[in-house]
């Protein structure tokens, strides 16, 4: 069982994801350079936060053409686990691995703050350790996190229970006031139909140790590690 963290030249949360996997979870993990074209030896791949290629055009718009994303598409199609955090989520949408798009925040400003999100789906390899409806305290840090998709896609996401996280208040109520960036239906994270690809704007890797103010994100990585361990035993 092995994790990989993709490194685009402008990734800047790559070390943070690596730290959580290696030091907090104690699992083996490698950095994967963006020019690599295969992902043979990995079981789970993280697309970390940052500004992949500068993102001056649109977040993730160039990353979708990178050599590694060809490999990530194949990897996901084979059933490999892919977690896109922040810029990683933006890249997954740009690459067509997840539907919809992440637009500029409603307030047109970058926002870095803790928010509450509610776990809407626990039947994924990333969230099975959470309780349905559990409220997590996680940071966001983005300028383009305003999720949008067309009404048919939204209906499909709902029907297939693919909305994994929604912004809410401390008591778990999904309200307009609790929506930091204008996301459609307060969507903070979604998965693909096969449930092996998750994209989310909040940063679980920044909330995996109590000293950072919250350890609510740790169970996400533990969920994935447990699934991988079970698969390795089979």
């Amino acid at each position, binding site marked *: 069982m092995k994790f990989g963290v993709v490194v685009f030249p402008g990734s800047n949360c790559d070390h943070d994801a690596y730290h959580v996997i290696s030091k907090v979870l104690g699992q083996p993990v490698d950095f994967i350079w963006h020019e690599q074209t295969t992902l043979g030896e990995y079981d789970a791949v993280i697309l970390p936060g940052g500004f992949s290629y500068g993102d001056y055009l649109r977040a993730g718009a160039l990353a979708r053409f990178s050599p590694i994303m060809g490999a990530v598409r194949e990897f996901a199609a084979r059933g490999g686990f892919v977690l896109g955090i922040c810029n990683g989520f933006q890249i997954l949408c740009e690459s067509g691995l997840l539907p919809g798009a992440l637009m500029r925040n409603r307030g047109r400003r970058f926002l870095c703050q803790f928010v509450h999100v509610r776990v809407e789906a626990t039947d994924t390899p990333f969230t099975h350790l959470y309780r349905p409806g559990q409220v997590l305290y996680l*940071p966001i840090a983005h300028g383009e996190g305003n999720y949008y998709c067309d009404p048919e896609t939204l209906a499909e996401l709902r029907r297939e229970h693919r909305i994994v996280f929604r912004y809410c208040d401390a008591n778990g109520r999904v309200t307009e006031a609790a929506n930091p960036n204008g996301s459609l239906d307060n969507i903070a994270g979604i998965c693909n139909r096969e449930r092996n690809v998750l994209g989310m704007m909040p940063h679980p890797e920044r909330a995996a140790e109590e000293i950072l103010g919250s350890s609510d994100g740790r169970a996400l990585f533990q969920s994935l590690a447990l699934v991988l361990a079970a698969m390795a035993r089979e």
Partner: protein
Amino acid sequence: MNDLTPEEYARIVERLGREPNPVEVGMLAAMWSEHCSYKSSKVHLRRLPTSGPRVLQGPGENAGVVDIGDGWCIVFKIESHNHPSFIEPYQGAATGVGGILRDIFTMGARPIAVLDSLRFGPLADPRNRAIMDGVVRGIADYGNCFGVPTVGGEVFFAECYTRNPLVNAMAVGLARREQIFYARASGPGNTVLYVGAKTGRDGIHGARMASAEFTESASEQRPAVQVGDPFLEKLLLEACLEALRTNAIVGLQDMGAAGLTCASCEMSARAHTGIELELDRVPQREVGMSAYEILLSESQERMLLIVRAGHEREVKEIFAKWGLDAVEIGRVTDDGRLRVFHRGRLVADLPARLLAEEAPVYHRPMKRAEAGDDVDWDRVHAEPAPLEEVLRQMLRSPNLASKQWVYRQYDHMVRTNTILLPGADAAVLRIKETRKAIALTLDGNGRYCYLNPRAGAQLAVAEACRNLVVTGALPIACTNCLNFASPERPEVMWAFSEVIDGMAEACTVLETPVTGGNVSFYNETEGRGIYPTPVIGMLGLIEGVNYIPANHGNAERRNRPSLPITPWFKTEGDLIVLLGRTNDDLGGSEYLAWIHGLVGGDVPTLDLHLERAVQRACLRAIAEGIIKSAHDCSDGGLAIALAECCFSSHRREAIGADLVLTTEGVRSPISLLFSETPSRILVTIEPEQLATLERIAREFRIPYAVLGRVGGSRFRVTIDGKTVINAPVHELEAIWQNVLPEYLGP
């Protein structure tokens, strides 16, 4: 454009034994500008204490270096980008951050934090709002993309900054002690390698722009402001750090102010070598650039590397991996000269030391200045309204209000080291590889320095130290950014000299050597100058932070408040204690400025030895594990500090407090609530720990007073038996929270 004085020019002719050519004049004028040469400030700066047991590198390099033990060191420095930020706020501020980050990673350190000290004119003026908006976005976009957390700083508003905004950025890096690199061009025969962005015509004369006051036509200087590319800087960072691990690099320096000229002459002067450059090989973004333009361009994100002869290919391959240009443009020589060739001709041939070290040193005339409004003290001590209303009015002051509008635009968490987030007295970052953490703050008070520059500088150093101490950190070193008006005015030079003396005294008593800094003169527009505004960037060290996840926790620590200590009240029933005592110190206060529109009176009296004792007592009490919260009591006085401790914080709702005070020792309730007496720290403890705290206070011979208890949801203050404030905390917090958004939008 030639800013050399006739005397300076004559000195050059004498030294060279000939007239310099126009290219050489341009190089000399840039290097001898105030910005690059410190010619007006040097004689004063020598009086600062710059050494100490932890200081590995003091002033004179790209940044200071401080040993924090276990083989780790902190590399840090502050720099101003005031002039560019007035002309073009967004790019001016962005490139200010970019420049100071390069100063850190050229030393071999990975940047781990940025802090910014900002000063603007009052927000009622839309021009000031536009400048602030641009500056904050510029800092945010640069730091966020680069991937360094912007963890703190300060924002202050006063009329004198209306057309003279101040943007001071401090960057902090972490390195292994043996990995520190210096900006030295050692080893004749070694190669001069140019890396990073191509050279364009942007930013020519930037150093000289920053060395003159502005006139009405400031916007015509816009081409002298550079444009930042944080993504390119990120690539440069990763490539440089990778290249530095190869043992192929001898030295390196950023091409900042005065560009290629400055980097090459300074590096060779420091190493007592020379450099030969071939400008035709310099990567250029525009065609037909002259030697003058290439030598003085301040295009961003460029570095000059000195590479061991024979290792060029190894280094170039690393830069190629990161998609960056790396071009050999010259070599190190042994004759001490900077020799420049362009299109086959020798276009400049100057002694490197003449450029880098032999600028004249001026003892500019000084004249003591009296400053400040007359104050009718009877009127000031009289209550202008019921005290609760006065408190609400004070919370509406942008200088005291929440700065969340600013810091939430900055990614302050990336790299997952920030264990005390913005909003507290200082930022605290863990050092992952150790059980240490560092605390960081920026502090300055231009109003005090205007009224009394020497005392004002001391107060700034004292407050900076106090802001670290309340988190549990021992202050260990500082850097300074000295923002002043024109040095050609004797009153300004006098204030500068006084500030240096005040800072030297405070840094000596508080044992915080100055490891470097920056001087920014000419902060004046159309003859109107800023307050003397020294800004102190202070570094503190916390030992014994437990960074291991909770489930591996160490049982012995569990019952003690964990470090860092935060300012917010924690638990109902805790006792609120003031370490230190309140005197009548309303001179220069926010109360006087905001409520009465006056800047006058005597600044607070600071006893440096009492200050030190209060700080050491607080650190002792924290070390003994009895302090549950600690907050510096300064701007806005006791009432503001107490209210802030009640406000909501990370995962904790607002909490009330019941305070029972007396006016014994002060002239009025106004003084009691809003006086800005230094050497005061507000702490909370469990009631049973009072005896321990009293023992510590006696041991350090400091005054203290129990002020009340934490509890409920109201902020209640009783003075001399009469309840004068009784307001729901959430109401007060809402006022304080909404000030900046009301001016600047959500």
